[in-house]
């Protein structure tokens, strides 16, 4: 139960969530709810692992993962943007589809070569910084560092660039955006696709870096859904998404480690002596997600903020109202 190790693992696991969450933030900011994260992450994880095992190139695997998940997300895009189907149900269908596809094509892949297939790095100077050094910059997978970069880049893009302005406009008031010459359909497709790419990246990060291998559905263990919840907690802000992801990762590791020692803070460790209490520990991450959601929802209520105004609603041009 070493706090440094817990936080270190937290950052690592959190990176997975961060990718998926930020991807979904992009999609939702554009007004499209994509609940298929779990399915897309599984497809990403499966294809990354599969390609890497056969070609030996982890980066290639990662790219294929992103494209596979992206392609799946485009299906969701077509159905919700062009066919104006209900975004919730389409997302669920996407989950089934992604899960099913990954199970079918991933048959026989299990654990073939469960070794870390992407390099890990230790940053020379920064890793000596007290406390933060060992946590953030020591022996972390290269993907973790990618995550560090993604957060500020995503924030900057959304809030400080012209493209970010367009993105937000499309999710807040697509009618206005359309009237101002923005191609609402094209922009929504783009950001749904980006969401898919990042979800695939998240999946690949699992199977190639953080928890290497392919373990069917257990590979993601519901992280796709947790990411959807984190989006709300993050109030659609990449920094908060990272914080939530890292915190969640740390919680996960804590849950694992807490069963180890005989004493906990000087007291008899119930989890050591009755291993079945471990099931309650298993519940923690999910209960945590609910808690995080409650916090996010109350905050939204209080500040009268909330989701992008047009989230979940299909945009139909030229609709005549009464």
């Amino acid at each position, binding site marked *: 139960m070493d706090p440094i190790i817990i936080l270190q693992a937290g950052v690592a696991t959190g990176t997975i969530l961060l990718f998926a969450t930020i991807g979904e933030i992009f999609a939702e900011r554009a007004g499209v709810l994509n*609940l298929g994260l779990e*399915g897309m992450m599984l497809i990403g994880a499966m294809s990354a692992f599969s390609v890497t095992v056969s070609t030996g190139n982890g980066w290639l695997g990662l790219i294929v993962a992103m494209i596979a998940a992206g392609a799946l997300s485009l*299906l969701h895009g*077509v*159905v919700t943007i*062009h*066919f*104006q*189907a*209900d975004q*919730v*149900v*389409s997302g*669920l*269908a*996407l*989950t*089934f*589809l*992604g*899960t*099913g*596809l*990954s*199970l*079918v*094509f*991933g*048959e026989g892949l299990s654990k073939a070569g469960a070794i870390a297939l992407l390099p890990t790095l230790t940053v020379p100077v920064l890793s000596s910084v007290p406390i933060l050094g060992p946590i953030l910059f020591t022996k972390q997978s290269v993907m973790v560092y990618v995550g560090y970069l993604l957060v500020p880049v995503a924030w900057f893009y959304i809030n400080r660039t012209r493209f970010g302005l367009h993105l937000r406009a499309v999710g807040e008031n697509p009618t206005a955006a359309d009237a101002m010459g923005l191609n609402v359909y094209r922009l929504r497709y783009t950001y749904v696709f980006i969401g898919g790419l990042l979800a695939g990246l998240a999946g690949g990060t699992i199977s190639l870096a953080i928890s290497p291998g392919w373990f069917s559905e257990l590979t993601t263990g*519901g992280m796709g*859904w*947790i990411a*959807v*919840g984190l989006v*709300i907690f993050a109030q659609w802000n990449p920094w908060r998404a990272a914080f939530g992801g890292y915190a969640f990762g740390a919680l996960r590791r804590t849950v694992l480690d807490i069963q180890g020692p005989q004493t906990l803070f000087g007291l008899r460790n119930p989890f050591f002596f*009755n291993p*079945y*209490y471990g*099931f*309650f520990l*298993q*519940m923690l991450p*999910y*209960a945590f*997600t*609910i808690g995080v*959601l*409650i916090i996010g*929802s*109350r905050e*939204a*209520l209080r500040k009268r903020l909330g989701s992008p105004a047009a989230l979940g609603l299909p945009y139909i041009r030229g609709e005549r109202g009464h």
Partner: protein
Amino acid sequence: MSSESAKSGSPGRLNLPFELQVEPRLNIPAWLGPLVSVVAIVLALLLGAFVLALVGGDPIRAYAHIAGAAFGSLGVFSDTLVKATPLILTGLACSVAFRMKLWNIGAEGQFFMGALGASIVVLAGIVPENAPRVATITAMLVAGVIFGAAWGFVPGWLKARLRVNEIITTLMLNYIAIALVNYFIFGVWSEGGFQMTRTFQKAAWLPRLSDLAEQFPILRGLTTHFGLVFAAIAAVIVWYILYRSLWGYEIRLIGDNARAAEYAGINITRNTVLVMMFSGALAGLGGMSEIAGVVHRLQGSISPGYGFTGIIIAWLAKLNPLVVVPVSVLFGGLILAGREIQPAGVPRLIQGIILFMLIASEVSLRYRLRFVRRR
């Protein structure tokens, strides 16, 4: 002069005397809905066959096998019905909730909680072992319904009071429910370290058709159990509530336009909680029926995803409780036969494709193609 004239000369454009336009439909003919659903399923099955072929399977043999293994004989059909029973209940659970645009993805967890509740009644001795069957079964049923309803109450209340997204809460509660059930199985009632409890006493077993085999030899070996009756009755009750009762009117109104319902003086908060509880109760009943009618013990593997398949069934049935029944039989067959198909993910994949095709095809209910003559 046509406004299209500027484009008619451009390269790559067929100069037909008419063009295709997409416009919103003004009314939906009654036959279109079912037709679209059927076409969607057929397309989905074709797509599934294609994927199967890609992975090296033999689609025709696989489908033929499914048909035979699900509906080929009385015995096999009886097994299909056994699989259909929990599906009907989860399908109903999802239909009820979806009617009010409450996305209950937690039917799986509510199913497990219902099983847990029913098990507690038996395994914790709340009902004595020598109690008559009717009393035991009734107690289990009540417990299953209450536990399921409670598991629906939580996300319902969170949504009603704090506007917390029910999709995620119900989903999270799935995982929590399964962990909870596992705790009870392993940590409290485990028999020899296996992932199951002891077998229930006979008084806790739902009667099956094969019980009557002495009088009617044809019923020998048929595993269809009384849970099917519960399911059928539930379907009728749900139908009555939704289409004939005042409450059902309120539910449909809220689902169509919550602001209008509010304006009409309907209490949305209360109905959110009640409907989620009702939905959870139905799924919980499914859980009780499964352990009392099929496995006769509490074990970890009582559901191959009934709660999730219920979502697809509800959507395919267009949220109509009576249609849920035949659709559940269809999916029951699919699940039953699918157990033997390699690879293991195929039934799930086909379910996903079906749902996708379904929602993609719904566009044809809202829009139609028109041939417009060009001047």
